[in-house]
């Protein structure tokens, strides 16, 4: 069905690496916190999304499959 990005808003400290690595889907607000583009991750960007998940220093970003199985990396 597709993958979606999810952010743990409490863990997120606004480091911003996710927006650097996936600018197509993640932008930053005035204070450096991520704004997610709604919808699923296009297949062409899934690998980039995984890299963004991996890069987060506080593990606040995750890629979840809409069928319910979660992939963290």
């Amino acid at each position: 069905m597709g993958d979606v990005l999810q952010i743990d808003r409490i863990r997120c400290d606004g480091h911003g690496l996710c927006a650097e690595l996936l600018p197509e889907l993640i932008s930053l607000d005035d204070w450096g916190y991520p704004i997610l583009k709604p919808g699923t991750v296009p297949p062409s960007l899934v690998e980039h999304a995984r890299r963004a998940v991996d890069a987060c220093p506080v593990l606040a970003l995750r890629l979840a499959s809409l069928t319910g199985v979660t992939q963290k990396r």
Partner: protein
Amino acid sequence: MELIARSAGAERLMAHRQRLGPLPAIPSGALIAELDASGLLGRGGAGFPVGRKWRAVAERAAGGAVVLANGAEGEPLSFKDRSLMAARPHLVIDGALLAARAVGANDIIFYVGVEHAAAEAALRNALAERPGDARGRTRIVTAPAGYVSGEESAAVHYVNAGDARPTTTPPRPFERGVGGRPTLVQNVESLALAALIARRGHAWYQGLGDGRARGIGLLTVSGAVNHAGVHEIELGATLSDAAAAAGGLRGDVRGVLLGGYFGGWADLHEQWGLPLDAPSMRARGLALGCGVVHFLPSDSCGVEATARLLTYLASQSARQCGPCVFGLSAIAGATQRLAAQSSQPGDLDRIVRWSGQLTGRGACHHPDGAAVLLQSALQEFGEEFAAHQRRRCLTISEPARVAVA
């Protein structure tokens, strides 16, 4: 009146039993079916169907669920929950006991706001009057002061760890809550109504009122009315009925704040005949929320009132999520400058831009509520905001714009 009483003081057990009879022995499956059929919607603010919520917990419970009766009532304009608990504690307890039976819980927590002394005393005395029901499985937990401490994950977090701040979901309380067990977090008014439906059946409840949703409910009416306070209405009663119940409007009224949390400002003229039930209001882009109805007098400035509300909401952030802490603080600051007619260039544009960046960006819905409030203010008081950006206040310079018969 079912939920509140004209006389002061808490209803004692004997009077409660005389009036309503004993706790019905209705089995759990049947009770949940009655709640479904009644269409009872939750009264904490979200308006989620009560039967569906109980079923979700019951399905996961395996006998070890928890019921948390939420009487924290952190919304400053809402007084209904504490009034209900103070006046009819046994009805609330009945609802909690029935919920416990329905979802398979042996642990009932009454979560009462620290400032609601009469409510807590009434519940404590009422529990002491029925030791058979209460012994070993009920306790009163005092909710810390603060707006977010009544949020369902915050309530569970407080019981688990003494920290009344919301947590990241999933898992939601109905999946994993107090002690890791499926927990039903239900507003005390919802529990009281469930206790009435259990005795009288869904048909009775459906026969009350004439809104898109049926039944009765509590409103807290405040502001430019003669008798501000908690009033019981049949759902579908209009805004004008609510004003009449509160002794009529006092003077000219500029606008009305509906719902508190997840609510917003509305135009009095347009909404004078608005049926007060959740689906009707949602159809008009408004929300019943926790039943707050606050009339803003014409000599009050909508921008100032909004600035005060936003400043309060910003101060009540749990300070866990950047967008909420920084976003609300910036919005409150800019709105204060606008209200004080000392705006900086671009303040209004900034507020509009920021208001679109709040929804869904916190762990709980606190920033969402602020966004809804702000957007409704920009719509309802659009001219006033534009004037304030030019450092003028229409309320001071213009006579009352709304005259209500």
